[in-house]
C-alpha cells in the first residue's frame, strides 16, 4: 500500500496543528483505507472496525492542535488504533465470558467472514486465513511490518513493546504463517 511521502506528512501536520479541516481531509484520505484494513484484520468485524476507525479519527481531530511538530502521523494513528483494538478485545473477552455458551451473534447476514468475502482466489483466501489464524499479538506485528512496512522501532513504539519483543513476534509469526500456508506459501518461502 502506498504511504504518504514525508512532504505530504509535514504539510498535513502543519495544517492539523493550525486547525485546518482541509489538512484533516487529506490525512483521512491518505490513511482511511490502511487503517480500516488493519482494523478489519485485527477485529475480524467490519462493523467494529468502522467504529474504531471513527474513534481513531475523532481523536486525531481532537488532538490536532496539540500534536508535536515532529509527530509521525502514521505511527500516531496506528498507536491509537492499537489501543482501541486492545480495549475492544478486553471488553469482548468479558462479554464472551458473561455470555457463557450462548452462540455468538454475527454482525452481518453473510455467512462468510469479511476477509473471506474479499478474497478472490484460493491463494488469497489461504493468505487471509493464515493471517486470521495468528494470535492477535503476532498478527498485529505481521500486519504492521508486512503490510505497512514500518521499521521495528516504530512498531515497538506503537505496541508499547521493546524492539526485541517485536523481532521475536515477527519471527514466530513468519513460522506460523509458513506452516499455515503450506503449498500456498510463496516459492521464496520454501526451503531452497
Amino acid at each position, binding site marked *: *500500500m502506498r504511504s504518504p511521502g514525508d512532504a505530504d506528512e509535514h504539510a498535513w501536520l502543519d495544517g*492539523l496543528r*493550525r*486547525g*485546518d*479541516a482541509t*489538512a*484533516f*481531509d487529506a490525512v*483521512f484520505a491518505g490513511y*482511511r*483505507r*490502511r487503517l*480500516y*484494513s488493519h482494523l*478489519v*484484520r485485527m477485529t475480524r468485524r*467490519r462493523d467494529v*472496525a*468502522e467504529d474504531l*476507525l*471513527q474513534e481513531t*479519527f*475523532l481523536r*486525531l*481531530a*481532537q488532538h*490536532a*492542535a*496539540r500534536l508535536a511538530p515532529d509527530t509521525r502521523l502514521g505511527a500516531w494513528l496506528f498507536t491509537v488504533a492499537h489501543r482501541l483494538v486492545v480495549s475492544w478485545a478486553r471488553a469482548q473477552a468479558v462479554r464472551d465470558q458473561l455470555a457463557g455458551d450462548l452462540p455468538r451473534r454475527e454482525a452481518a447476514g453473510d455467512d462468510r467472514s*469479511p*476477509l473471506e468475502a*474479499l*478474497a*478472490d482466489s484460493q*491463494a*488469497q483466501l489461504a*493468505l*487471509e486465513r493464515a*493471517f486470521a489464524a495468528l494470535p492477535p499479538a503476532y498478527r498485529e506485528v*505481521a*500486519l504492521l*511490518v*508486512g*503490510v505497512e*512496512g514500518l521499521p*521495528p522501532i516504530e512498531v515497538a513504539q506503537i505496541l508499547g513493546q521493546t524492539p526485541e519483543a517485536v*523481532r521475536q513476534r*515477527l*519471527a514466530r*509469526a*513468519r513460522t506460523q*504463517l509458513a506452516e499455515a500456508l503450506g503449498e500456498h506459501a*510463496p516459492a*521464496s*518461502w520454501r526451503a531452497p
Partner: protein
Amino acid sequence: MSYNDDAEKLTELGQGLAGIDLNAASAARIAHRARQDVGRGPSLLRFIEPAIAAVLVTSYLVWAIAKVFEALP
C-alpha cells in the same frame, strides 16, 4: 533468521493481502463527524461525565455512611 529477512518475507506476503475499504457513505459520515472537531479539543462531555459520576458516587457513599451511623446504638 534475521529481522530483516523476516521483514522482507512478511512484506512479500503482505503484498498479497488486498486493501479493504469501507463504503463511501460511511467514509463520508466519519470524515464529516470528525472534521467538525478539528482544532476544538476534546469534548466538554469528556470532563463533565466523570465529574457527574464522581458527585453521584460521593453522595451515595456519604448517604451510606450516614445510615451506618444512624443504625449504631
